[in-house]
């Protein structure tokens, strides 16, 4: 076999390996029920769930509870199927949590509890406002 053919094959093999590895590591946005089912199947990490903080009828956010030493926080997230779930975040409360429109939690179920490693907040930004 010619050297260039060998090199070509190696390159293709690496490219395929990259695609397979990417497909394997990609996560997707799911609901809490799906995340729960995934935990039962052994995937308890790196799951993205999108939702909103639970709000009282008057619009006030409820259920946000920083821990005693303020180094962690728990809050109630309502996903797109209106399922409520308490989420534990082992990080100080993100300073804009209460102002956020949407919250993406990244984590998974452990012992029936949703533990987030990371949260992403989508905050209302004045930048996009078009009024004076």
């Amino acid at each position, binding site marked *: 076999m*010619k*050297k*260039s053919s060998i*090199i070509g094959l190696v*390159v293709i093999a*690496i*490219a395929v390996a*990259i*695609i397979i*590895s*990417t497909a394997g*590591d*990609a*996560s*997707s*946005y799911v609901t809490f029920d799906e995340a729960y089912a995934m935990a039962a199947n052994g995937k308890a*990490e*790196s*799951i*993205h769930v999108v939702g909103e903080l639970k709000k009282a009828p008057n619009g006030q956010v409820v259920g946000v*509870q*920083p*821990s005693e*030493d*303020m*180094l*962690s926080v*728990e809050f109630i997230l309502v996903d797109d199927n209106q399922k409520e779930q308490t989420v*534990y975040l*082992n*990080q*100080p*409360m*993100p*300073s*804009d949590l209460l*102002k956020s429109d949407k919250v*993406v939690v*990244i984590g998974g179920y452990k012992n029936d*509890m949703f533990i987030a*490693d*990371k949260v*992403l*907040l*989508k*905050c*209302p*930004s*004045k*930048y*996009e406002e*078009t*009024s*004076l």
Partner: protein
Amino acid sequence: MISATVHTTIGNIGHLLVIVSFVASIIAAFAYGKASLNNEIGNTDWIKFGRASFWTHGLAVLGTAVTLFLIIYNNYFEYHYAWSHASKDLPVHYMIACFWEGQEGSFLIWSVWNALLGFILIKTNKKWEAPVMTVFALVQAFLASMILGVVIGDLKIGSSPFLLLRDVMNEPVFLVNPNYVPEDGTGLNPLLQNYWMVIHPPMTFLGFACTLIPFSFCIAGLWRKDFKDWIRPALPWTIFGGVILGTAIVMGAYWAYETLNFGGYWNWDPVENAVYVPWLVLIASMHTMIIFKKNHTALKTSIVLVIATFILILYATFLVRSGILGNTSVHSFTDLGLSGQLLIYLLFFLVASIAIAARVWSQLPTSDKEASAYSREFWIFIGALVLCLMAFQVLVPTSFPVFNAIVEFFGGVSSLAPPANQVEFYSQWQVWFGIGIALLSGTGQFFFWKKMDKEKLKSAMTFPVLISLVISALIFVLEDIYNPVYIVVLVAGVYSVVSNLKIMLDLVRSGSYKLTGGSIAHIGIAMMLVGIMFSEGYSRIISKNTTIISRNFTEEQNTNNVVLFLNDPKPMGGYSLLYKSEGLKAEGIPGYVKKSWLDNTENSHYKITRADIVVDGTTYAQKGDTLYFRTPENTYHEIEYTSLNSGKKFTLFPRTQVNDEMGQTIVSPDIKKQWNRDLYTYVALQSDFDDENTVWSEKDIHTIRPGERFFINDYVAVFQGLERLPRVNYLTMGPNDAAVKANIEVFVEEGEKLYLEPKFIIKDKNVGRPPEVNQEIASRVTLENINPEDGSIELGIETTQKDWIILQAIEKPQINILWIGTIVMIIGFIVATRRRYIEFAKMRDKGMA
């Protein structure tokens, strides 16, 4: 309401210049295109015409830029662009930054660079001018169309930066008074008020602009069927583009490191990836072009890579500006409705260049001889392949949003999200490619002389291999490195440095300074690799401790943060930490002014001091002076580190920024730089006493006579007396209204004093008792009542938990190797650019190019 003159002329001039530049670029493309198609005799007139059109175009672009800058500089807030990107509080260098904060301005700066580079090419090229400038003018036509701002029926072409506010916004105020001009703009996003914002974007766009040059030469070569000669004039520009874009990327990384709180310099954010990918391909193309110059192989690969670089730049532009990245990126632009236009731009050049290449593909000269495994070119080629794979690995996941959009366009459902742990995901691949690059760049250099065989190679390599093993072994022992991957990185990196150093010294000894560019750049790259390995691989959170995260969990969890209470020292990672104060940066006063010394006014930029401000013996302001704060949204937290071993002290000032424009609080670190590491510290969360979560104690009422001492939250305080206030902020006082304040002095830590001034206000027969909150002593006092007979007051005192911050501290070892490596790489690139340009210029002057 203020009526001011609406300066319509300057905007009309700007808009006219954009239209002129657009039309002139199309004429230039046509004229240069005609010149390229004509034979030698018939083309001089077309070339002259094309040149004049391009000059007209370029000058119009420059004029557009000057006009837009004048609108920003003169605070013409009747213009939407100035209103939404600038404000009166900005110094001149940030006004320059405002210019490219918006999409329109950043297209304009890109276009300005292209125009300037076009001028240089017209001056420096003879044979290639017509076809190259045809491509240039076409690209410029597309760029000008992005800011054209012309509406034909329902079709909007481009977004003009010269629109008046009243034409953009449907505000009732404009119906009442069409000449309404806002008093101030909404300003440059405070997060971007940083010197990097002044230099990083233009650098990036210069890099973008540089990729157009090799692309134009390549297309010109394919079009004119002059398949080989285009490489010589293109190569110096490829190398120059490589250094500019590479520097821009590292600048962005450094900016992210010291201002944005990603916890590091590289976060694999899609916007970072979007520029990293074309840079890698550009470097690959540079190497295959060098191979071609040496032995006339790798021509097809060079063509593919040069085209791919430019298309990937367009793709990056599309990703960042179309809004398609949505939630996946921290810093993409908002959609201006130009996505369709951007897509056409991308697809036009993609399809056109593929068509032009396909037309002549079978005629391209190829060489049948296989490159020997002992030739330098063989190994450079393998290196280029590794670079391409490296780019491919980043490109695939970065394109997920595009993939989702395409699937959805065809009616499917796709919700691929980026990998949750991006850093780990990308690093696991990139580190091996990096090792490959280091080994290849070290070894490839030994094949400098064409005739190399096994024996010669062995003898040439023995010395560098031995040296690098010895050095690596020393480093293992000194730095305790046990991770096998990192050991490989270290050996590969050191090997690359040593072998390239040897080659460089050999070249210097033989007097060939000009040829050292490659080896210097490789040394820089290898140093960067080692620096990244240390600073990321051995990045250590030193604020670690364990805690119980919730009542529902009994087991302890690790946490990466510590809580610091004001004036309450706490040990952490070999230091004793003391949170001393919160400060603001006042204009003209060194250091920071304590927040608890300042009274707010109606305008957040102006505050009144309650104490004399003395720094190093100089009095900068006296009690009652109004101070000016350019950026009142920034709070700096003074944290004193005392080493537990040596007792040495230093102070860091990590920043928190209440960023209204982004609707978020942005935290920025402060970094203690030491020769062998950075100590990176940021405030994750600060207490906010206005927050509804703050729990106050029950109000305690004390009756106090003037001069009496008493306690507020365990601090000694003295009531100095009452003072009548002629006026109170935010209130207009009538003849029967009155306001009084009580002056209270509190003695706090280190012999310092602070001043409380609770007020008692009678307005329209109603009594107001605005509470005075002070974070430093964690108290809220109200002036409940005044007894006129003895001048005593009733003071309501509430207290809460002491002021606190949550802090994270990270150690980044040997990060300086990364920055030094970057500088070495830049020097290498510059040496190489110079060499290749001189080669081109010599051949041109002989009439060969």
